[in-house]
């Protein structure tokens, strides 16, 4: 039930993010979710694209000289209401699972916000989410977005 995420190392310089998104756009790769971690000197762009496009996107990025990494992350469907996210995070906190980072999809689905979680113990989190009825999207569900 994990989905693929691509991380890209970026120099914190003018135009580098634009060049990268243009490269993907030109080649028809749709960014479903995107986030940037930035520091003074560098940044990390994390993004989700449709499953069948992951291999091609990574290839394009490598050819353009980017360091990339593909990771498994969880995509949970959170009710689009106050405390919707808090309820999900409470499950993690109560079970001592830590969040490396989190961000959301560009689009939601059926009054649900789609949240990406990178966790210290993703397998256990998955079990807990299933037990608690928190929706977790499969790669094919994400691909259908």
């Amino acid at each position, binding site marked *: 039930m994990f989905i693929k995420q691509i*991380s890209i*190392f970026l*120099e914190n310089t003018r135009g580098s993010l634009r060049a990268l998104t243009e490269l993907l756009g030109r080649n028809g790769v749709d960014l479903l979710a995107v986030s940037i971690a930035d*520091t003074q000197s560098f940044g990390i762009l994390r993004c989700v694209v449709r499953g069948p496009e992951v291999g091609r996107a990574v290839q394009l990025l490598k050819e353009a000289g980017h*360091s*990339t990494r593909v990771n498994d992350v969880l995509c949970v469907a959170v009710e689009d209401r106050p405390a919707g996210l808090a309820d999900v995070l409470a499950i993690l906190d109560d079970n001592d699972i830590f969040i490396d980072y989190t961000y959301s999809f560009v689009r939601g689905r059926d009054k649900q916000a789609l949240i990406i979680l990178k966790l210290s113990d993703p397998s256990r989190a998955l079990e807990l989410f299933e037990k608690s009825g928190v929706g977790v999207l499969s790669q094919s569900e994400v691909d259908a977005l």
Partner: protein
Amino acid sequence: MFNPTMEAMSRDERRALQSERLKQVVRREYDNVAVYRARMDAKGIKPEDVRGVEDLKFLPFTEKTDLRDQYPYGLLAAPLSEIVRIQGSSGTTGKPIVSGYTQGDIDVWTELMARTLSAAGAGPNDIVQVAYGYGLFTGGLGAHQGASRIGATVIPMSSGNTHRQIMMIKDLGTTILCCTPSYALYLGESIREAGLTPKDLKLRAGCFGAEPWTEGMRTRIEELMDIDALDIYGLTEICGPGVSFECLEKKGMHVNEDHIIPEIIDPATEQPLPPGAAGELVFTTITKQGMPMLRYRTHDICKLDDSPCACGRTLIRMGRITGRTDDMLIIRGVNVFPSQIESVLVGLEGVAPHYLLVVDRVNSQDVLEVQVEMTEDMFSDTVGNIQSLGARIHDRIRSIVGVSAKVKLVPPRSIPRSEGKAKRVIDNRKL
């Protein structure tokens, strides 16, 4: 003049003295140091073939790599029981280079620094503030010993802590300052920023060395502190500071030729060049006992000037260092070779040695930026991991090379590749 007999000796007399001393040091090296004996044998030269200074050109050269290969004691020409001091500086790769001194070597070095300070007008009534680093680096202890020898009052401040340096200069009435020229400039600017003027201070002169500088910097330092700013030169391999020094004429640095013979060679043909020609500076130590050097190649480029000096010294003068024949950089007085940085990077797991050194001078201080390409293997997708990688590289460079560098991780292939020899250094300092 601290030692007029030696400093103002007639050239003929000195040449005779040099010849006698050269013969002795060649014999000493041949008898005690395997590398020198092997090299002389390979050239078919026996110690008795050396009749005087005119035969210097037949002797083998010594390179910094020899000090690395023979590290730590392979070049000692005296038993360790006679060695009373070790000084050192960074080498070309991970290991430092070290030099051993007998008590006699320390005494000579001390006198050479006494001559250096005396040439700046210093004497028993002076207060000498030593703001060179103390430790393995020869600057601090070298200046300290020389200042003690002339009977001056020494303030052993060591480097850094500008606020306290200025406080001491002001409160204790420092008259002579010893530090690197870039630090002198920084101190001068800081003194002015603190609202002080030269009238508030008793500073009179400064002996500045350990890195190349310019006439422009001299003018600025002299204006800021109203002092005579004098250039001094030295290197650990030869003895440390005191190899050569400027007098108040400020027309080049007098080489202490009764202990050290300078030559200028064409680095390509390795043939000696006449005075006035620019080339690579080569030194032979003719009185050193612990670790003498035959024809040590400094890789510094300069000229020798044998015209008379108004100060009365007959010691030949060397001009400012105008460049290097290799890729060595001097960062805040520390010798840095790109190969050292490379060896640090190679030694770190998962780090590829695609790097570029960018050197700049910001607020009169040298700043070294090390750009390292972030390869796929190094790339982790959390900020914390990348930052700790940068910190690890920084710490390793500081502990091995001895300078603090700003580490910048850059995307792969962003450092320009060139055909053949890679360009590893961009030096933006205007020297």
